[in-house]
Structure formats: C-alpha cells, structure tokens
C-alpha cells in the first residue's frame, strides 16, 4: 500500500467512508438523520472528486466536484428538509424489517460486488481502480435500501444515494465523464427531485400519508 501516492490513499479512505455511510443509511430509521447521512455522503463524494482532480490534474473534475457540492450537499438536502417540514413527517419512523438481516444481505452484496469489480479493476489504468468495487457496492446497497423502505421519502433518498454511488464510480474508476453528460445527469436529478417533491404533496392529499402501502392497488394476483 505504501506504493500508492498520498492522494490515492486519501481516495481509498473516502471510498471507505462512502461505503460506511451507505451501510449507515441502510440501517437508519429516522428520516432527518437519513437526510444528514445523505448530505455527508455528498460531501465525501465531492471531496474525493476534488482530490482525484488534484491528484491527476484533471481540471474539469473540480467543476464536477463543485457541482456535486452544490447539488448534493446543499440543494437537495435543503429541498428535502423543506419538504419534510411542509409535509411534517419529521418524526416519521420507518418500521424496518429487522436490521441484522438487512445488514447481512448488505455484506453479502458487498462481497459480491468486490468480486465482480476485481477483474475489471485489474485492467484499469487509473491509480484509483480499487475503488470501483466500492462504487458498485454503494449502488447495490442503496438499491437494497430502496427495497427495504416502506415510506416515500426514504425511498427517494435511497434513489439519490444510488446516484451518488454512480457518480463516485464515474469519477474514481474513470477520471470523470464528459462535462456535458455530467451536467445532463445533474439536471435530470434536480428536475426529478422537484417532480418528486410535487408528488409528495399529491400523494399526501390523496392518501394523507406518505406510506407506500397505499400504493398497492394496481395488481394482477389476488
């Protein structure tokens, strides 16, 4: 490991933090704390992006780091906070299926994604290749989180953190996608968030709750 330059070690550190945060979100019950965790994840992501940019001299990564910072650390959490307050579901607590099992599945998924990523990262030219596995793991974990959630807001947060994982993969495994694409992605995420915000209200006024169990009417089997 000592062979690695400092920035690479830093990136690995941040990668580990991201993974940790992903697990934390998987286990987290309370909506507000979820949002905080999400913001933290964004922070870590922005930091790692910036470091990659600094380490490899890819100047455009600074932009994307800034973008991430603005979007995922300030804008989205802010929107979420406001929504929570307006919908006052602040004290919404998720009745999770028991956490140990979820954790166990999560770990299995992690191992799987590391295995999956291993042959790929062998081919990578980038120094930060070993982080690809972590990126996949993050994606999978947030997927798992979305599955386990019964309420609308946490599910959306899971969706957004999945976006984080992807973004991390993009920056760490490859030194960032072309700017156009990143902008487009960012725009989509933002718009999507707004639309979801609108949705929350509509769902509220229809079912006066954000519990997804109201959204199970359309079905085939009975």
């Amino acid at each position, binding site marked *: 490991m000592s062979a690695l330059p400092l920035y690479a070690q830093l990136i690995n550190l941040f990668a580990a933090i991201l993974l940790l945060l992903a697990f934390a979100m998987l286990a987290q019950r309370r909506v507000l704390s979820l949002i905080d965790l999400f913001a933290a994840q964004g922070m870590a992501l922005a930091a790692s992006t910036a470091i990659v940019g600094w380490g490899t001299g890819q100047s455009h990564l600074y932009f994307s780091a800034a973008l991430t910072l603005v979007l995922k650390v300030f804008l989205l959490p802010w929107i979420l906070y406001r929504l929570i307050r307006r919908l006052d579901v602040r004290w919404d607590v998720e009745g999770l299926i028991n956490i140990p099992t979820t954790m166990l599945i999560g770990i299995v998924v992690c191992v799987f994604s590391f295995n999956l990523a291993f042959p790929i990262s062998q081919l990578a030219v980038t120094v930060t290749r070993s982080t690809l596995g972590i990126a996949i793991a993050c994606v999978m974990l947030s997927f798992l989180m*979305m599955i386990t959630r019964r309420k609308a807001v946490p599910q959306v947060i899971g969706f957004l953190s999945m976006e984080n994982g992807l973004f991390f993969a993009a920056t760490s495994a490859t030194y960032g996608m072309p700017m156009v694409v990143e902008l487009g992605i960012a725009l989509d995420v933002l718009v999507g968030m707004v639309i979801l915000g609108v949705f929350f209200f509509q769902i509220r006024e229809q079912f006066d709750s954000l519990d997804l169990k109201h959204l*199970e009417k359309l079905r085939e089997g009975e």
Partner: protein
Amino acid sequence: MSPLSLCLAAILAWLAIGSIGLAVPHRLKFISRVLFPLGAGVGFALAIVALAALRDPASALVLPLGLPDLPFHTRLDALGAFFLAILGLAGAAISLFSAGYFRSSEGTPPGLICFEYHVFLAAMAAVLVADDAYFFMVAWEAMALASYFLVTTEHRIPEIRRAGFLYLLIAHVGAIAILLCFGVLQGGTGDYTFEGMRAANLAGAWPSAAFFLALFGFGAKAGLLPLHVWLPEAHPAAPSPVSALMSGVMLKTAIYGLLRVCFDLLDGQQWWWGVIALSLGLVTALYGVVFAAAQTDMKRLLAYSSIENIGILVAGIGLALLYSAYAKPLLAAIALTAVLYHALNHAFFKSLLFLATGSVLHSTRERSLGKLGGLIHRMPWVAALALVGALASAGLPPLNGFVSEWLLLQAFLFTPTLPQSFVNMLVPLAAAALALAAAIAAYVMVKFYGVIFLGQPREPNLAHAHDAGRHERIALAALAVGCVLLGIFPATVIGVLEPVTVMLAGTPAITEGSGNWLLLAPISGDRASYSPLIVLVVIVVVVLATIGIVHRLWHGRVRRAPPWDCGYPLQTPRMQDTAEGFGQPIRQVFEPFFRVERELPTPFDAAPRYSVKIGDRLWHALYLPIARGAEFAARIVGLLQQGRISVYLTYSFITLLALLFFVR
C-alpha cells in the same frame, strides 16, 4: 392471356365486386340483383378456365407484392386447377342462390356481407394458386377472417359470437401449425417458395414432423377429430349460403393443402403416415356420422355429416399415402381418384343440402327439426331437389355419392398385395368402418329428409311456408343436375381427373383399354366394373314398363282416404317420430360416444317436460381441461404482480445479481 392470369383476374374481379358492395352498403336490390349474379358469373368463368387448364403444363407467375425477398408466387397446376374448378362451380351456384337469399339485413348491412362474401371467395381462390408459404398463409388467414365475419353476421346472438370466436381461434392455431410445417419443409434453405420446398431434401425425422404439422393444421380447418368442435358451432351460426360455401368449398381447401403437402412438397412418404391418416379419418367419419344421427338442428346435422365426409376424404388420402409408400402408384392413383371425386361430389351435394336448409329456414324461420315436417307439399321444388342431394349424400346408386365410395372400397380391396401383414390386417377393418359409416349416413339422410319434408307439419305456422324464389330454384336445380351427371358419367369425370392423379401419383387411375365412357373399370373389366348409366336406364325402363303393364292389364284407379294407421282414429302430427325419436336407436347403440344430459319429469310435475341434451365428450375431455390449465397458469403468473413496489424492486435487484453472477 394465360389461364393463370385469367384466374388472377377472376380473383381481382371478386375483390372489385366486393368493394363495390362496400361502397353502397344499403342498396339491397342492386347488391342482390346485380353484384351476386355477377360474382356467380365470375365463378362460372373461373371454373371453365380451370377445367380448360387442367391438362396444360403448370404455369407460374410472380406478382410484385409480398415480402421484399419473397414476392407472391402464383402457380396453376392440375391439382390447383381441379380445386379451382370445384370452387368455381359450387361458388357460382351458391352466389346465384345468395342473390335470392340475402333479404333483410339482420346484423350486418348487405353491402358488408357482399364484401366479406366475395373476399372469402377470392381468398379461397388465392389459396389454390399460391405457390409460396407467405402468399399461402396470407390467403389462408384472409379466408379464415372473411368467413369469421360472415359467420358472425347476426352478431347480436351470443351463441353466434361464441361460435365465431371458437372458429377463429381453432383456425388460427391451425394456421400456426401450417406455418411451422412450411418452416420445416424449407429444410434450412430459407427458401419459402414451394419450388424450393420441393427441391429441399429433409433428413431424419423432419419429414414426419412436417407431415404431422400439416395433418394438425389442415385437420383443424377440415374439422378432423379432435379439432372438429368449431364446425358444428360455426356452420349453423352462419347464413345458409355461407355454410354451404364453408362446408362445400372451404373444407376442400384444407384437403387441397393436405394433398399439396403430402404428395407434392414432401417426398419419401412413410407407410405409417398412411396408417395414421387412415385411422384418424375413419374415426372422424364414424364420430361425425353418429353425432349427425343424434342432432335435432338441421344445420348441425349437416355440419356433422360434413365432418363424416371429411373423415372419408382423409381416410382416402391415408390409403393413397400407404400405397405410394409401398411404391404402388396405380393403387395410389385409384385412392386419390376416389378422394378427388368425393371432394367434388361433396361440394355439390352438401352445398345443395345447405342451400335447401336455407330455403326452408327462410320460409319457416325454423331450424330445429322438431318444428318442421310435411314441407314437400308446401315447397315441392326444394323438396324434390333436396331429395336428390339427400340420396347422393346417402351414397346410393346411381348418384354421385356412390361412385366415390365405390372407388374407395375398390381401393381398399387391393391391399392384400401389400408386403406389411399388419397393414393387410388393418385395412379390412378400415373397409368395414367405411361401410358402416356409409350405412349410417343413409340413416342420417332418411332422418334429415323425412323429418323436414315428409309427414305432417309439426307446427301450424308451417302452413304458410312458401317455395323458394327463382334464383334459389335455379341454383338448387343446377347443383342437383350436377349431382346426377357426376353420378352417371364417372368414366368421363375420372378422365378429367387424370392429370391430377398423374401429377400426384405419377400414373392415371384407369389403365388403357379397360372400361370406356359407359363402363367404369379401374383395373380390368373382370376385376370390377360399374356403369351407373345402364343401372339408371334399366331401373327407369323397369319402372315405366311396370307402370304401363299394371295400368294396361289391370287399371290405374286411385281413391284418396284418411290415413289408416291400423285404424287408430286420433292421429295428431305430434305422434310422428321427432328428430330425437328417429335418432334414438343410434343414440342407444353408440351410448358411449355421447355425453347425454337427460331431464326427466316426475309423476307430480304440473307441466311435465322431457328433454335430452347431446354433448360432445371430447369437449369435456380435452378442451375444457386445456382452458382450465391455461387459466391456472395465468393465475400463477398473476401472483408475480402483487402491486408492492418493493417487491418489484426486488425483482430487478435479483435479476441484476443473477445475470451478473452468470456473466462472470
């Protein structure tokens, strides 16, 4: 202009007539007095062209339509020409009848009926000239569609809708099988023209696969057991000319397809194909005729009798396959002649009978045999002409039905020359079954004719029944004359058939020298010979002579008196046998065939009523289980979709993981 292009022109003409009808949907007089006779004319012309082209070498033509790599190939050879002739003749007569038939439009406007009717005709003709898989399938399914819409003309009646659905479903399944059959036949060459299929040589089990697919697919259209269920539903549902067209001509297109595949496109027939086709055909024949005997609806009865005739045809095809598998072309030729001849005969007499039921239906508004009777006094024309049809269909000499059965039985009698002893044992049984079927057919026809036309009217309103109109009479008469002529000039007809048998079996059925225009003798004079004309003449002479002598030697005085009936005074029409009563012996003998639901009155019933419903065992044994199976599978699959989004997400998640797992 070549015959083929003339045939195509005829198809176009029919389409044009139909479109004109569609353009003026409600002008009934114009449609019935101009368009339908026009269609009849086209049909007659087509028949003449086809008959003329029968001896010509096959001519082919490629139309600039169809798929880019597979344009519509058309070809006119002896086989196609013969069936075109059937289509043309029967179609002409039926169109003429329809001119008088379609009066008030119950469900569908007459223009639309005219359109569907002529598209139906055109599609059948197209099937017969098609020379590549795609064109064939297009024409085939267009035929099914047009007939479906014709069947559901009076779509307000739920039974009719149900019948139509069943018909289209089975037709579609059959069509899929035929498509697969072509898929096998092209043998990996990717060439879907029939030419390519002839060239392709199939290895191993593929030919058998093709044969079975063809038997299934065409059997579904022909009403072969166990795919016959649609037939007795659809035929009664349709307007009578349409039933006549379906039963008289459309079923023949299925026979055409079977012949085309088995003898033209496939080579190297296996003897056991023959055995299977033979047994299946005979089972179908017996099944059909036994059910016909038990029917109480005149059109259902005829529909079941069509099933019987189809069975006989398929049995003949099986026999021909058997012979050609054992390289006995002459015998195969005889069997094929019998098949073709019977197809021709059936087209005539079954159309005649269906049209006759149409006239009865029109003048009495009554389809159930239990409410008819004594119509020979009210509608003498129809009665007289229907008698010809009934006798022909009962297979009595000297009419046409007998000739084909005679030929087929002759063909059976030659089997001892086969190497396979097992087959030799089987074929006499087959002959016995055929004879039995023919005998029951006579029973059925006596029931049909006797209950409808003879006896006393079973309902008062029958007193107002009126005879058929001009067009209808002419059409019926034409068909009846056809039955007689086909019956008394077999040698000539077989001479006409010769090119077809030569094409299919490689040799004519009648060897030179044996027999002449008067005497039909397949192998040799002292082997077997039959001359209906002489028989007819002798019978007529004897009858006339007897009449003359009796009136000469004694007298011809006649007194009218009320019927005696053993002196029983209080005769009412209800005392005659009903249809149920007449069929009851057969029902009793063949009890296991039926699924009988009886409703017996108790002694205390205020209004006692006795009713018997005859059901088809196969329906309950085969079709309902399949339907239930599909429903069950659907329920299982439906369970996948529980409406919970997390479940759906899990699906995606697991799919993803599984795929990734398998990829690495």
